[in-house]
């Protein structure tokens, strides 16, 4: 194969890897939004926090796999605490329409708080998480080489995605969750324990962000600014894909991943303007996003 083709394919896989990570974060984001109407600005901060948790667990135990197991669970725990202790507390005020403003500001506060807490605990110097021995190195195929770890990320995300799909579309729990995402009031009237489902979905969403955070840690360095780009990107994904639409989030994540990879190739420097311009356009023409299901 010639060099150009190799490069194009490589870029494609780079885009896939980032798109998959983005989808893991954005899927939780969009699920939470679709269900509870909460735009959790702090969602990407959980992603960043998970990377630090992974770093810390590896400092203690040295095992990446342990980190991959434990850190997302810890993050999900934090997410559930946030939902139970904070978001629920706000809903107690019976704020009417204004509850949206308060929830948004709460998540803004939590975002800043997580970032600053991380800086105070771990400092602003980047930290390095090493991939396990098994996943280091390169894989050869069709005359090209590619890092194993990125392939692992793609595989991991795919299996999580599959698992998520199975749970959501094949189990009773999934039915309940999807019903609650579509119409929480109606689900409540049909006897679903909506608050419990809310907590579950919040936990699930933050768990997904946690998985993404741990998976990203060895690919990148771990530093407090990790959340910023991820937050903006997942915003774009959720706004374009349609609030609450998993399918939309998947499509846009992939597109965005590829656009980032090929944008660097073909029009470096302008991707921010193009992306946000497109997002603004879609939001004004179709406020429910490209794949939005709800009015």
């Amino acid at each position, binding site marked *: 194969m010639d060099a150009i083709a190799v490069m194009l394919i490589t870029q494609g896989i780079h885009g896939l890897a980032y798109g998959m990570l983005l989808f893991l974060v954005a899927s939780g984001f969009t699920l939470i939004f679709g269900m509870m109407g909460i735009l959790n600005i702090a969602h990407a901060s959980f992603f960043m926090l998970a990377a630090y948790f992974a770093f810390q667990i590896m400092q203690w135990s040295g095992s990446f796999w342990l980190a991959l197991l434990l850190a997302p669970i810890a993050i999900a725990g934090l997410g559930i605490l946030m939902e139970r202790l904070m978001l629920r507390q706000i809903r107690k005020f019976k704020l009417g329409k204004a509850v949206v403003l308060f929830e948004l500001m709460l998540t803004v506060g939590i975002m800043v708080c997580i970032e600053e807490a991380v800086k105070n605990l771990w400092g602003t110097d980047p930290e390095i998480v090493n991939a396990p021995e098994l996943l280091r190195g390169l894989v050869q195929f069709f005359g090209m080489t590619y890092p194993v770890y990125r392939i692992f990320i793609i595989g991991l995300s795919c299996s999580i995605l599959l698992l998520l799909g199975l749970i959501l579309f094949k189990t009773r729990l999934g039915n309940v969750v999807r019903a609650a995402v579509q119409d929480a009031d109606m689900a409540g009237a049909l006897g679903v324990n909506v608050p419990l489902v809310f907590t579950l979905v919040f936990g699930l969403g933050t768990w997904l962000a946690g998985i993404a955070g741990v998976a990203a840690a060895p690919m990148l360095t771990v530093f407090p600014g990790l959340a910023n780009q991820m937050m903006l990107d997942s915003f774009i994904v959720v706004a374009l894909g349609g609030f609450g639409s998993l399918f939309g989030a998947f499509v846009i994540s992939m597109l965005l991943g590829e656009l980032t990879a090929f944008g660097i190739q073909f029009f470096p420097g302008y991707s921010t303007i193009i992306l946000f311009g497109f997002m603004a356009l879609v939001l004004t023409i179709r*406020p429910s996003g490209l794949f939005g299901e709800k009015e």
Partner: protein
Amino acid sequence: MKNSFRKWLLWAAILAGLYTAPVLFGVFELNLLLGASIFALFSLSLNLLLSFTGLLSFGHAMFFASGAYGTALVLTRLDGCSLLSAIFVGAASAVLVALVLSPLLVRVGGHTFAMLTMAFSQIMYATVMKFSHLTGGNDGMSGFPIPPLVIPAVGLIDMSLERNFYYFSISILGLSAWVMWFFTRTPFGSIMVSIRDNPDRVTYLGFNVPLSKAIILGVSAGFAGVAGSVYALFQNMVSVDGVLGPLSSFTPLINCFIGGLGTFIGPVFGTGIGTILLELMSAHPEQAQLVFSLVLISVVLFLPGGAIMLYWKITSRWIVLRNKFQTAILKGNHES
């Protein structure tokens, strides 16, 4: 009668305090006061959208930035531009940005409005960086001349003197705040509040909601622009991170929430509290933001009326306030 007398006394005290501030304080404290006043005006203009129209903007900094860059550009590029016209250019450019964006912004509300404004401020950030030959990019613009104020029959007033500049800008800021307050009292102001409560009903009363929203946006942007413009003069500098950075849209929002939503004057208290907090934390700058975010979280969780609510609670006007608070913003549409 007695109430009104007390009100006048309070105003007289505030004015006297502001007038004597340069005598009482050093340059450093004076600058602190002026900086806080600028951000108070910025927060007030945001509050016009937030408390009075129920729109949460995550990109209000773009209007502030337009004002700042407008003033800085006209002072850099145009020799002999007078002080007031520089401020006017700042405010006008902010209004212009608002009007250009308004066809898109007035159609939406809630989360979509928040995300759209955020997207636009991101675009503006990227644009300012792209046109770095004009805006100075990261380095920003600084050291532009600050013309003296020309008052007919009085003469020139030199603005490089801290005290003169303080009196000048505090008058501009105070006047703007008063105009904004009056704006909320006009018939149009009541339309604004009604739109917050129930835009559908406002439409079915025959009012043009999108047009009204565009006007509110323009007014709010204009005053944010004035704040930005005075800010550019005050700092004699505009930088992209300072006016469009990640936290610059959140800071006035946080001020509004800490001060108290649903009231006109809340953001002023919020800004005051924020400034004092930052001063107290000046020995530990690395923890200032953490404390700030914790204060915000606790206000949202335990004191949704902000500092004003606390004040009223203390002065045992709690019952009055609760009614006011509930009617003003919290009840919203209780059926929905």
